């Protein structure tokens, strides 16, 4: 019995643990490189290998960032990797720098929050947004020029505030980050006291609660039509055009899988698009191609036609990107209004 348990334990360790990578580089390549680049030069995520990033980011900051992520700002929490896995990744990222990791005091900075707020509104809000909401968009592909290698972080994000100490935030404000739009505010003439005030204001953003989307949403939008599939399709097309969208393709569900002309006429997909909306969505998050362009599926069974679409509001929750929520809510309303009109 003991032998069997031992063997099972070993087998599980070797084969069943998705995080059983041998070192930090492997872990980084598996979990981080898709967004941050294989050499850490950025993409959807920030350029981690930028010297002025690593010179000011403590190991504790990197560790907590990986562990907690940035709720609502694309970067997921990787707590499942485990403490040793995260340490391996941090060590690997640190190996890109010739300098030792900075170590910051953990004590809080007690500045004047109100004075800090005024300074924040004067110097920081244009990039970091109201109440530290952060820069808009993600990914160099659609929302950022390649010359601009970073989006201003959300300073009010609970993941950021838990990861960054007051003294680290102060150091970044003082020194800036060469190679990004973040300038040195010491060079711009702000005094130590003024910077302390800004830090205290940023820390006070911890008290602002993030607005969360309702958790339980149906993954599907489904309507039924009494009309034939042909009539329903014509009604959907009319409703799509009436909503300022363009029908881009109508196909059978099994087109491409069966011989041409032998597809099932009772299972139809209609694709439609508004390119302004598509472009805006891709600028917010380049991953949304997984549910765009818009699509409604029609299936006729037992004389009834079902109209179905994904629920964008549900989908948006899978992307950990709060910027998508509003747009996806609008898309859900649009789908509902088109399908409602087509089934009247």
């Amino acid at each position: 019995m003991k032998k069997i348990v031992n063997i099972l334990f070993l087998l599980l360790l070797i084969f069943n643990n998705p995080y059983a990578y041998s070192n930090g580089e492997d872990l980084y390549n598996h979990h981080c490189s898709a967004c941050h680049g294989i050499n850490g030069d950025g993409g959807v995520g920030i350029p981690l290998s930028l010297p002025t990033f690593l010179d000011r980011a403590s190991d504790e900051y990197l560790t907590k960032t990986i562990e907690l992520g940035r709720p609502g700002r694309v970067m997921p929490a990787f707590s499942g990797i485990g403490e040793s896995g995260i340490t391996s990744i941090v060590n690997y990222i640190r190996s890109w720098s010739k300098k030792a990791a900075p170590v910051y005091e953990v004590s809080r900075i007690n500045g004047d929050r109100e004075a800090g707020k005024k300074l924040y509104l004067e110097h920081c809000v244009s990039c970091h947004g109201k109440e530290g909401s952060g820069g808009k968009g993600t990914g160099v592909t659609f929302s950022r020029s390649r010359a601009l290698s970073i989006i201003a972080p959300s300073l009010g994000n609970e993941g950021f505030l838990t990861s960054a100490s007051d003294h680290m935030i102060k150091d970044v404000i003082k020194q800036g980050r060469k190679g990004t739009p973040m300038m040195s505010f010491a060079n711009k003439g702000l005094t130590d006291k003024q910077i302390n005030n800004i830090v205290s204001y940023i820390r006070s953003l911890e008290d602002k609660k993030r607005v969360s989307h309702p958790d339980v949403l149906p993954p599907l939008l489904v309507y039924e039509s009494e009309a034939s599939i042909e009539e329903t399709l014509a009604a959907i097309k009319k409703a799509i055009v009436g909503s300022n969208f363009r029908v881009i393709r109508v196909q059978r569900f099994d087109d491409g899988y069966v011989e041409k002309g032998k597809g099932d006429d009772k299972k139809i997909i209609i694709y439609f698009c508004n390119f302004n909306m598509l472009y805006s969505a891709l600028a917010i998050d380049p991953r949304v191609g997984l549910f765009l362009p818009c699509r409604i599926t029609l299936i006729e069974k037992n004389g009834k036609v079902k109209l179905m679409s994904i629920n964008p509001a549900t989908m948006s929750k899978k992307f950990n990107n709060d910027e998508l929520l509003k747009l996806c809510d609008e898309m859900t309303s649009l789908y509902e209004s088109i399908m409602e009109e087509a089934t009247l």
Partner: protein
Amino acid sequence: MKIISRWTALFILCIGSITASAQDVMIARSLLAFPEAMSSLQNSIIDHKYTLSRVQRVDIGLKKAGFKTDLYRVVFFGKQEELKWISDTHPELSAYLPLKFAIFAEKDETVVVALNPVLYSEIADEKKLNVIYKRWAEDIKSIMSEFRKSE
């Protein structure tokens, strides 16, 4: 006591594996430029015994509409018999099928993303379907792993 602690460790590892693998949106990067990465992705899909039904050229549509964009495509794939069976027996799943990858250029490299099919259990949660979702998820992971290593 030793045995009990081993069992506990086993249990924790199993739970850890399940939790850790629950990625909703899967993502991978290839050092290859878009044309080569796209070709590698398509070959890998076919090697995994799927039919590649269509490639939607999102960037072409955007460019025609006057937008500046990098290369961006959506690749649809599936297995005919599975798609037929599922759309006959669980038509509600059809809105999420066929399976797809979104693939886009990032400078000289290429990024691919996919939705984890295990999420479909939120729509239809049955033993037979769950086996299929899990297999799809494993295949997508394997395709992405090959994509990551493609040269």
